[in-house]
């Protein structure tokens, strides 16, 4: 019977992977649409309006266009690296989706070092950027890749440190446990005690995913498109996909670690006591609303702020965010020591 259980487990995991991947892909399509609409309306424009009602199918039209585009590879590019870079990028970001719990107990891999795994995967994403920049053999790509590597490495530190406070409070690295610990905590969210950590995390996540105001690796005015200047067609689409799934992952980490994850208010649990399906659906809805609020914040900031200068970016990361997060760890640790 041991073998049967293993096979069943594998089948369930594969089904989960298929579901998560297809939902994530669809999510990217609508996240792009959502972004274009939000930024358009914030600039008193309309955003996409032509494809489908109110332009809702615009992303699918874009995907079809990218599919049929010629797959250009520069003659002087380092071909193997050029081919492998977008695959590393997409694999790293998709890999980090596997530990995110979308509702109680649901994660493809419910591992004990969930947060560490997330950090590892987002660091791996930097390889894609650097390799793409190097392999393209173009000055714009190269400069973009260099900038991105420096930026990602700097902000990796402050992002990791900002979550240490959450780890101390929850006493675990498993994302399910962190949400459960928030349920048992008096404020139900770690946002209120960990406000400094949240602030540092949000800024670092923006820098980590190369979003405005920290989008120096793809600064259009200086670097054409940064590290993926030479990419076109589906290879470009893979980078694009990786960027948006990266945003999804960072938003879900923010939701899980600071905004209470899938946790619902206590009276809802007692109201639907016993019917697990309704509670699961409500939990998913709760998670998605919080997730989209975070995504909306990304877009909101993008339509508001200009880009940082490179030295400002570095000094913000090293001189402000890292000391702040260390300070946060200090306070959290001290309070935790005295409370227990």
């Amino acid at each position: 019977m041991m073998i049967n259980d293993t096979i069943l487990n594998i089948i369930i995991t594969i089904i989960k992977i298929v579901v998560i991947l297809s939902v994530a892909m669809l999510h990217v399509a609508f996240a792009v649409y959502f972004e274009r609409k939000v930024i358009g309306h914030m600039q008193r424009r309309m955003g996409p309006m032509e494809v489908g009602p109110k332009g809702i199918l615009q992303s699918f039209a874009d995907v079809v266009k990218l599919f049929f585009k010629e797959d250009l590879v520069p003659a002087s590019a380092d071909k193997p690296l050029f081919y492998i870079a977008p695959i590393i990028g997409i694999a790293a970001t998709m890999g980090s989706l596997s530990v995110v719990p979308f509702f109680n107990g649901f994660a493809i891999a419910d591992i004990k070092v969930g947060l560490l795994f997330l950090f590892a995967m987002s660091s791996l994403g930097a390889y894609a950027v650097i390799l793409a920049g190097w392999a393209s053999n173009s000055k714009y790509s190269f400069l973009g890749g260099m900038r991105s590597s420096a930026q990602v490495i700097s902000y990796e530190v402050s992002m990791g440190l900002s979550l240490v406070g959450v780890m101390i409070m929850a006493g675990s690295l498993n994302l399910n446990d962190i949400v459960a610990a928030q349920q048992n905590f008096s404020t139900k969210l770690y946002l209120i005690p960990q406000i400094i950590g949240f602030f540092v995390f949000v800024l670092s996540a923006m820098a980590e995913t190369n979003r405005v105001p920290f989008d120096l690796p793809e600064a259009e005015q200086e670097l054409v498109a940064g590290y993926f200047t030479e990419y076109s067609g589906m290879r470009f689409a893979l980078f694009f996909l990786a960027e948006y799934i990266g945003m999804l992952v960072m938003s879900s980490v923010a939701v899980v670690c600071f905004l209470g994850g899938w946790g619902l208010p206590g009276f809802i649990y007692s109201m639907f006591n016993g019917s697990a399906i309704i509670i699961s659906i409500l939990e998913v809805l709760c998670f998605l609303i919080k997730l989209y609020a975070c995504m909306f914040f990304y877009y909101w900031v993008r339509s508001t702020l200009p880009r940082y200068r490179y030295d400002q970016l570095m000094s913000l990361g090293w001189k402000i965010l890292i000391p702040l997060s260390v300070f946060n760890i200090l306070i959290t640790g001290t309070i935790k020591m005295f409370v227990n």
Partner: protein
Amino acid sequence: MKKHLISHEPKVVSLVEKDYTFIDFLKTVFLWEIVSGLGLTLSALFKKPVTMQYPHEKKESKPGFRGLHALVRKPDTGEARCVGCGLCAAICPSKCITIYTSEDAGSDKVVDRYELDILRCVFCSFCVEACPYGAIVMTKHYEYADYSKEALFMTKEKLLKNWDNYVSEEDAKVYFKKFWAPREEDFESHEGQAVFRNNRQQ
């Protein structure tokens, strides 16, 4: 003699007008400028967009708009009003009007060809102002982009057809009388000037 008191020493102007108060400090810490910027963009999110969905909704041209050219038809005969005097061609800054005339059996001037290259036109409407007979006007029509140069090279027939297609009767009144003020109606020469155009007296 009055001496001008001009100090050549640089005047020190403090860029910080008031002291850095505690409130300023709080504004810096809580990123007040960024927060107010975010508030501005959020308020713009709920305002009506200013976009006009062009092919679906079109803007009505304002009176006096300088669109595609047209040659005016005489209401009675249906012929062009143009007599081939060539003033429009003479005043045209981009030299895009060419007129070919000849004499008919009764020694009258006949306009054989009236050609206007839209691709060279600068839409100054000098031709309209120069015409003593109000024979050429500019219509409201502006959507005539085309793939061929031939379609944008106007002949006399095409220009007459433009008059039929794009100038309604009200348009004709507004454009023709109010804005382009044809000399045949408004032109008043002072006493004693030799009048070589006789049509006013007729």
